């Protein structure tokens, strides 16, 4: 068993860490404050090949691994969780389902532009009445001979107003329940497709989270993704992969808050000495550090299994559950260690605490992760 990074991964880590420090960190406070999508960062990432890390070379990607992709999400999220989730939703929720379920024509049409960052990807499953109970899809897709007609709406869609390609789930046969759900590739600008209201959020405020509206939306016949009636299964598998991305985002947020707190407690003096010298600080930080490292091992192990082609559904759920709860705990304590300053926007930990919360909610709440883990346990 080898826990070390390969030489290629070490070189990659050097690059993404320096990219995050120099290009992403300086924008993080502004992106949060102004609720602004960091489009310039996405363009830079596209040029470097970061928007298509695990995409094979024949589809215009870098030919990297899932492990490398999640390292990038972690390093970005360490300084800016918004940028982390932009990459995660794009890669895990749009590129991966096309790569895993698409026809050769669909892969050739969509992957090169997604991998280069020319196009941004998104994923639409959640509806106003279908959250955790995702099987209750009310968006419909009707076969109209030479095309599909979609009607309905999706909410809380990450990247929505900046995305060009959307993986959308819709009911093609209500009588079949989840087996009547199919997946479609919808492009920005297709007739009858529009972007609705933008959500105002607690954290990850720069990510463009909007509603998708389908009003007699015409989708070409060839844009059905995977077999008819397999949409729910595609969505669940896509979310399994997505959870590794969000787990990495949570891990990055936790690591970022650790870094800030170590720095701050060494500088901040009370009662004549640095607060890092107090045993309360030391013991609590030791516990947090241990949890962050445990989360990292869970995340890396889930990514490794996906790279190896092994089943990873429960691993991804455990990684996300643990990393998200760790991120929430670490950031909450980070604010506490910073005291009054931590509650102000002068220090990044208050933003990190707001950002951390979403990792316990999206791509399956922590309760859903427990359902998935228990489902595997009591199979």
């Amino acid at each position, binding site marked *: 068993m080898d826990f070390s990074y390969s*030489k*290629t991964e*070490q*070189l990659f880590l*050097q*690059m993404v860490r320096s990219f995050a420090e120099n290009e992403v960190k300086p924008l993080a406070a502004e992106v949060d404050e102004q609720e602004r999508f960091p489009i310039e960062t996405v363009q830079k990432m596209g040029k*470097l090949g970061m928007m*298509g890390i695990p995409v094979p*070379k024949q589809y215009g990607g870098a030919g*990297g691994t899932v492990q490398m992709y999640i390292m990038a999400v972690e390093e970005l999220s360490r300084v800016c969780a918004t940028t982390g989730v932009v990459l995660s939703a794009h890669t895990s929720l749009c590129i991966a389902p096309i790569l895993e379920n698409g026809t050769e024509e669909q892969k050739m049409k969509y992957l090169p532009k997604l991998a280069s960052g020319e196009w941004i990807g998104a994923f639409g499953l959640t509806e106003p009445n279908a959250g955790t109970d995702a099987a209750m899809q009310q968006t419909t897709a009707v076969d109209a001979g030479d095309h599909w007609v979609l009607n309905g709406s999706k909410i809380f869609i990450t990247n929505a107003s900046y995305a060009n390609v959307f993986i959308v789930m819709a009911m093609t046969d209500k009588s079949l329940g989840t087996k009547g759900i199919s997946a479609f590739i919808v492009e920005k600008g297709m007739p009858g497709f529009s972007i609705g209201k933008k959500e105002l959020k607690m954290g990850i405020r720069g990510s463009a989270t909007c509603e998708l509206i389908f009003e007699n939306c015409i989708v070409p016949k060839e844009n059905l993704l995977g077999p008819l009636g397999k949409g729910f299964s595609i969505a669940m598998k896509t979310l399994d992969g997505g959870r590794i991305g969000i787990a990495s985002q949570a891990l990055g947020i936790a690591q970022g808050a650790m870094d800030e707190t170590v720095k701050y407690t060494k500088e901040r003096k009370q009662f004549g000495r640095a607060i890092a010298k107090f045993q309360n600080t030391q013991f609590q930080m030791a516990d947090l550090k241990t949890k962050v490292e445990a989360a990292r091992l869970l995340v890396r192990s889930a990514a490794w299994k996906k790279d190896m082609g092994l089943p990873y559904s429960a691993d991804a759920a455990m990684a996300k559950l643990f990393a998200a709860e760790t991120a929430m705990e670490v950031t909450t304590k980070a604010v506490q260690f910073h005291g009054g300053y931590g509650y102000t926007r002068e220090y990044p930990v208050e933003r990190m605490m707001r950002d951390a919360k979403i990792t316990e909610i999206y791509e399956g709440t922590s309760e859903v992760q427990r359902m998935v883990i228990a489902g595997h346990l009591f199979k």
Partner: protein
Amino acid sequence: MNIIVCVKQVPDTTVVKIDPVKGTLIREGVPSIMNPDDKGGLELALRLKDQFGANVTVISMGPPQADVMLREALAMGADRAILLSDRKFAGADTLATSYALSGLCRVLDYDLIIAGRQAIDGDTAQVGPELAEHLDLPQITYVADAKVLDNGHLQVDKENEDGIQVLEVEGKCLLTVLASAFDARYMSVSGIMEAYDKEVEVWSADKIDVEEGKLGLAGSPTKVFKSFPKAMKAPGEVHEVTPEEAVELIVNQLKVKHII
């Protein structure tokens, strides 16, 4: 166009500490990086490659650990990497280092050599100019920009204290480059994926055109007498006065300090 870029692996001096007793750098636990001015030089070479087409070869002299820095250069877009590594080079000062590098350049096909202005560990700024002398090449130091003109000549902006000097060069030459003038690119992900599939050629002394006696410690006239951290001085004072007043001011200060 064939471009050779000289790069050196150095300790990251922004995190390095100095042994208070011995006065030497404490290198343990300090990450090694590509010298910033050299990285600027590589960036210039890669820009010339992007704009005018070029084959970029990075060369370095150092221990086998320098491999990772050369992989970084390949991932940034260099085409070939050669590491001069041999015990015969050990203990080389700037003269012996530049001599060894000249022996390597002589057996390579090149139109332009680019080096960093100076390395952050030694700060001598000698290796580039010495390399040009060994090869009998014209040299331009402190380069802030360069481009290939339609007539095939190189137009080079040289940074002076009071401005930019624009020079045109015909034929082979050597440039030394400032990191501040060239914001170096990141490695690309596909470059990283290929970096370890490419070869970093490790060359020993017998593959290059040199006299062995001039290599390493034997070829190094520099003897380090003592090294010590520079003492911090208090900030000076600025007085805007006439020459007569200045004389009076200085004489008074010298009297105050009991020097006269």
